[in-house]
């Protein structure tokens, strides 16, 4: 390599090799994103909708000191009323056809011995087959009720709802 042309070619070759190596390095090191960018946006919206609906049910009638509808439903174990009311708030739309959100509801409370137990308030509106992408929402209530294996009097309870789009 005594003439300068040859040196230039060599330098060019080295530069090209470095660029190619850098490219391979970047490609091999990059991770692929297998999920879509909007994967959890649906969940987030479903959670917000469900929380709003359940919160609406936990507000007493305007200007009254009565118990909220949700509290009354839990005190009387009225799963049918829960279905009617929650379904109405959740699935009614301004269009002609209602939405198709499915849900099931549990009530969690503390037993006399301090352990936590969950009872079914409303069984699933459609059988679960395992592929549902459900979100979990909850609402606190204070009920005057004797739960199984608990003392009478007022108790804190947590209404938990699983919600999924069918």
């Amino acid at each position: 390599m005594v003439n300068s042309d040859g040196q230039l070619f060599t330098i060019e070759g080295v530069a090209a090799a470095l660029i190619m190596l850098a490219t391979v390095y970047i490609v091999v090191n990059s991770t692929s994103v297998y999920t879509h960018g909007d994967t959890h946006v649906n969940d987030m919206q479903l959670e917000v909708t469900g929380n709003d609906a359940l919160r609406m049910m936990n507000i007493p009638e305007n200007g009254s000191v009565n118990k909220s509808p949700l509290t009354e439903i839990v005190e009387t174990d009225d799963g049918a009323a829960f279905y009617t009311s929650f379904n109405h708030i959740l699935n009614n739309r301004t269009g002609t056809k209602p939405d198709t959100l499915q849900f099931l509801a549990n009530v969690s409370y503390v037993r006399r011995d301090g352990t936590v137990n969950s009872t079914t308030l409303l069984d699933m509106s459609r059988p679960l087959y395992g592929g549902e992408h459900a979100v979990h929402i909850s609402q606190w209530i204070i009920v005057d009720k004797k739960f199984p294996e608990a003392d009478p009097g007022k108790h804190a309870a947590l209404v938990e709802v699983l919600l999924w789009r069918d």
Partner: protein
Amino acid sequence: MARLTDDTAQWIVLMGFIVSFSLFFLAIILNQSTVVGQTTAEAVSEFPKEDIRGVRDVIIQSMFVDNEATFHNQSNVQNEIRSLSMSRQNAVVNFSDTTDPHGPQHYYYIHYNNGVTAYNETWTFP
């Protein structure tokens, strides 16, 4: 490249570099944009906004529950709030009630911590 003695040719090569670099950066931006929606939605889903609001509401409600001797309603309800949030919401919840000795104020200290998000509040009544 070794024989680029001509000025115009050098400009063409330079422009080629500039264009390829800008394409490269655009590709990086496009690549990053796919994860933005996901991470945002995940962050929103993981932030326990409704849990905190719910437990705060029920704690304040529980402060006004009677505590007469037959049922001990208030202390029962308050203990149940603590154990229910621990077992069903994975959150440590604690609260206490202090009365101002020099005035009518009640101070309610509310603490919530689920390992990721912590929330502390002093609620004053009246």
